[in-house]
């Protein structure tokens, strides 16, 4: 299929105004008036108990992972940790809706999504521990490097999805970004390219209320972030980001749509960042305890736990077991992170180019000599 032949791409060259027609009907692109919810509604009946239990186990594990990583930071084992506590439903759902062959494009806060997708919990922390940048081979689990420059990963996801489609591969890319990241030009350009190319990509915006200290009201005046979709001619969906099955469903539908050639979707998940921006941040400077407390009442783990126990799909024993499994994971992570990483300073020169330049060889020799002198000072 050429770009020319993409569904609908041919249409919107405006005919002379007397016959002007919009390319698509905007109505179906607009998000619902309210974030979509499952928990506490009848819709929850339709979900397989297995999926709900899986989600629950992952949420508990994720919550524990966040706590462990935060503790490691306090102990000086990590350089920094941007916690996704309170946002676990989004993190987990984003990972679970994808097939093995699909690709995940995480933002810097999305370590948890990587782990839920099967990435080694310790390797996922390499960047934040500081022994290297990306701690894993992206191709192995099809997880792009955690992206620190905000929104820059979105065009990558589009390009990759587009390339896969051109090759005839049945691959979907899911890209994550924060509410703050939607203000960047890269967000705009990525969504536009995706729409024009009808690339199989899903954009998940976690609207957690803040970009560091900046509240959403200073970030956008849009009715919702999902409303941005119509400006690209793609559907926008709004979902309660703390309702794990709801996020799972909305993302699954978007992934399925992308997979069958229906093009990209923009999903806004309304959630909240319970912890400070990172361990280095002081959230009391810009928000009140009351707000945080209110959101704690709408906690993704508790919401799902309540639903599961209410429905008799989970008992005390199950809760305890799940917690124990998470504890085991945390203990293992702690042990591994408490071991000092093996460092080879000479690696600094190893990956800059396929072959080091003559200049890098000179510099490597210089460092080598310095290291030798350090070890064996005559």
């Amino acid at each position: 299929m050429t770009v020319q032949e993409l569904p609908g791409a041919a249409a919107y060259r405006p005919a002379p105004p007397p016959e002007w027609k919009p390319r698509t009907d905007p109505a179906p692109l607009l998000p619902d008036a309210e974030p979509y919810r499952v928990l506490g509604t009848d819709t929850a009946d339709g979900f397989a108990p297995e999926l709900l239990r899986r989600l629950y186990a992952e949420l508990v594990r994720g919550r524990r992972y966040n706590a462990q990583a935060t503790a490691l930071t306090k102990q000086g084992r990590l350089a920094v940790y941007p916690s996704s506590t309170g946002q676990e439903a989004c993190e987990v759902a984003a990972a679970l809706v994808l097939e093995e062959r699909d690709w995940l494009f995480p933002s810097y806060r999305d370590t948890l999504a990587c782990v839920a997708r099967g990435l080694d919990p310790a390797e996922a922390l390499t960047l934040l521990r500081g022994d290297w940048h990306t701690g894993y081979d992206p191709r192995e689990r099809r997880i792009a490097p955690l992206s620190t420059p905000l929104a820059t990963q979105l065009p990558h996801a589009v390009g990759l999805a587009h390339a896969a489609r051109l090759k005839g591969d049945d691959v979907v890319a899911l890209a994550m970004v924060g509410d703050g990241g939607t203000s960047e030009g890269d967000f705009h350009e990525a969504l536009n390219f995706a729409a024009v190319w009808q690339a199989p990509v899903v954009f998940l915006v976690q609207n957690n209320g803040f970009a560091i200290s900046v509240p959403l009201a200073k970030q956008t005046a849009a009715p919702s972030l999902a409303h941005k979709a119509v400006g690209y001619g793609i559907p926008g969906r709004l979902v309660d980001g703390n309702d794990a099955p709801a996020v799972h469903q909305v993302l699954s539908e978007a992934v399925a749509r992308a997979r069958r050639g229906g093009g990209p979707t923009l999903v806004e998940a309304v959630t909240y960042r319970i912890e400070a921006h990172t361990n280095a941040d002081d959230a009391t400077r810009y928000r009140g305890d009351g707000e945080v407390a209110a959101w704690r009442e709408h906690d993704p783990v508790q919401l799902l736990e309540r639903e599961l126990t209410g429905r008799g799909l989970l008992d005390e024993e199950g809760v305890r077991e799940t917690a124990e499994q998470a504890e085991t994971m945390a203990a293992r992570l702690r042990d591994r992170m408490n071991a000092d990483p093996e460092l080879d300073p000479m690696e600094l020169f190893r990956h800059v180019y396929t072959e080091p330049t003559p200049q890098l060889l000179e510099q490597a020799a210089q460092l080598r000599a310095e290291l030798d002198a350090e070890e064996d000072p005559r």
Partner: protein
Amino acid sequence: MSPASTAPTASTEAATAAPRRPAKPATMAQALQRAMRDAMAEDPAVHVLGEDVGTLGGVFRVTDGLAKEFGEDRCTDTPLAEAGILGTAVGMAMYGLRPVVEMQFDAFAYPAFEQLLSHVAKMRNRTRGTMPLPLVVRVPYGGGIGGVEHHSDSSEAYYMATPGLQVVTPATVEDAYGLLRAAIASDDPVVFLEPKRLYWSKADWSPEAPAAVAPIGRAVVRRTGRSATLITYGPSLPVCLEAAEAAEAEGWDLEVVDLRSLVPFDDETVCASVRRTGRAVVVHESSGFGGPGGEIAARVTERCFHHLEAPVLRVAGFDIPYPPPMLERHHLPGVDRVLDAVARLQWEAGS
């Protein structure tokens, strides 16, 4: 650090008017904050904008208290979009304001490069001087703070290669205040590079009576010496001063020049020093290849060729992406690497 300053010693009017209070230890971050505060108090046209600069006071707290004192219209939390921040600041300056923009980290200024290169640097020139653009872009730069990927870049080479910009970087608390005041007062756009790892460096300094600092474009000899000149700026100044102390044991009496301003460049002060000493090493954290040191070494050599006993050497970051925190100490020019370079200045050979 007790600089043998070449700066004029006359203090500003404000400074002489106020009774001199005893200087207390202040950090560079505090001096920078104070510079903006004083500029805002004096001139209602001065506006501060950027990500998290208002309520939070900036991730390094350099704008702490400004929104409270002057209101959110004078110190504004913007949406998260660097090109938008700089682009709107251009418009504000076109209307007569004097915006001071904060980029949160060095690498996050890159999205704003088109605005900087194609508009900020050129506005005065393209309009035949009718539309000057008094605008300061504050960029925390450099490493040494254990920052993860994209948080420790040194991008001064990009700014230096862009005619129309002034490029300034303080290395002391006193200069932080004086140069930022000068930058805000300048009718030309200034890229103001703040060495991240010196934010918490301290010096005795009185905000009530800040010492006057030379205008933009003047380097300063921070330590006099006769054997060789270390030419440096920003985060590498303390390294060079320490190296100079250590060099005494080897019998080298090193002069240390703090450039302070990369554009305009103070050929006079630098070359006067090199002509005296006959040897020079340029020291900076930025990568060597294509970095500031090439320009500096080349222009010093052009001007002092027959005074040089050895080629001007460079000690710089390696030509690699900035390393992860646990390896950055191997990348950053340290005292030993500076001394090694000094040792290679052909002390035996002569020329």
